């Protein structure tokens, strides 16, 4: 099970890094939709 747990950990933190990109994209799209700083 060691490999499984290491993969779960890597998958989770990989998912979180993708989540960062997703949040950034959401912010950019909101900016394009007319929101101004």
């Amino acid at each position, binding site marked *: 099970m060691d490999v499984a747990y290491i993969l779960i950990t890597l998958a989770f933190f990989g998912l979180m890094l993708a989540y*960062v990109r997703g949040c950034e994209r959401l912010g950019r799209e909101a900016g394009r939709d007319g929101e101004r700083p």
Partner: protein
Amino acid sequence: MTGNGWLQILVFSVAVLCLTKPMGLYLLRVYDGSLRSLAPVERVIYRLCGVDPQDDQHWTRYAAALLLFSGVSMLVTYAALRLQGSLPLNPFHRAAVSDRQAFETAASFTTNTNWQSYAGETVMSYLSQMMQLAFHNFASAAAGVAAAVALARGIARRSGGRIGNFWTDLIRGTLYVFLPLSLILALVFVQQGVIQNFGSYVTVHTLEGAKQVLAMGPVASQEAIKQLGTNGGGFFNANAAHPFENPTAGTNFLSMVAIFVIPAGLTYTFGRMVKNQRHGWALWAAMFTLFAGGVTTAYWAEARGNPIHAARGVDVAATATNPGGNMEGKEVRFGIANSALYATVTTDASCGAVNAMHDSFTPLGGLVPLVNIQLGELIFGGVGSGLYGIIVMAVLTVFIAGLMVGRTPEYLGKKIQSREVQMAMLYVLIFPAVILLFTAASVVLPQGLAGLSNAGPHGLSEILYAFTSVTGNNGSAFAGLTGTTYYYNTLLGVGTLFGRFAMMVPMLALAGFLSERKTSPESAGTFPVASPLFVVLLLGVILIVGALTFFPALALGPVVEHLLMGLGRVF
């Protein structure tokens, strides 16, 4: 309830109030970089780690650094626990920690949760306790405060998404806050009788003639950071109910103050950073109101005790020689008031250390720790996580207030628009989603039900508490649930990870988005965020978000259990 009990709660509250400003000012000097007494040490660390302290990171880089640091340190801890049997400082030849427990423990300590499905004194070597678990106690606490300070910077300045340097915040927090304060507190603990040694376990003969083995170890050093960092993981299985971890009324009081002092101080730091000190105090007041409500309810419920006892002629009234109320699962040394206060403090603050067994509280007494965590660990909260949790709620509060009066909402001069609200809602929704989905799965799957030792509503409360605790990064438990299975170890470990990082990412995004906005001067139409009205609205949002989301589950658990207790049924 007794006057003595209320006096102790009052003294504790005054101590927290008095320490808020000095701690807040100290934290401000640490994180604005003006405190330089350890600058040579800092420089060496930066050089060794290749950190440029002047690099002001965009929020995406800040978040990536935090995730990278946490992921790598979690994997190192997993490996070290699995290799424990071959590593030094293992005088009792502890074997490798099992894979499922190593995963859960590594996840739990990385996320500042410290949920423990093992007994430290029989599973962990001294090296594992000191190098792995204690390391995360410092690092996860420093990472939490770093994230909160980053959010404060995002609000306080206009910097195009740049919110500071994660590595600098992490190192400065550890060097200037957690290491020195832990050293001082550990020395006080040793003076009070908390043990600190590498000795062999001691065999003693009890008065009844039985043999008992007393576990030893470097406890005081762990105990100090466990409380200051709102980590909560005990050296011993009994945690702060163990006389070697928490020997006197003095250590009990200091422990509780240590849990609250940094989260309380951070509200002051935040007020100074955003140049609105009254707003910092408004956040403090909202937190204190929720704390006061919780401790009053818990103390009342535990002092009242179980009515079935009274109906059967047991004397449950408090007298000079009888504590009265519900003493099941409580230390006689601490009594009802200090057990209720400790349970409230530890679950308000995402600490999770316990000096009494929450599973043995009355249904309503046990409801308080559960609700405290479900409100989002923002009643002073975990170090850092409490502050950013209540700031997210404040953003939602001004948004709702803005909608009510038809104005563009503003928070401390920054416009709150759709992307900020999206991030705040992500933060708010992930928390109950993880708790309720994992709880729902566990009450229908045989693997989930296999861990239960109590039937009926109390069993539901045990499962709900477990997932609430790990997702809220608290770590305390209704210990009736057997969590040492592949199912629970894995799911609870994953729950801690989501509860920490899936909430931190949108919070850091919120910080970045706010830092891109210009600060508008206050006008007649600005909603005042330092007024009693704001505190009331903020409390309303916190209670509605927390209470309504979890009310159905709570109704089926502790509320039903309380009603059935009135009819003479216990679980």
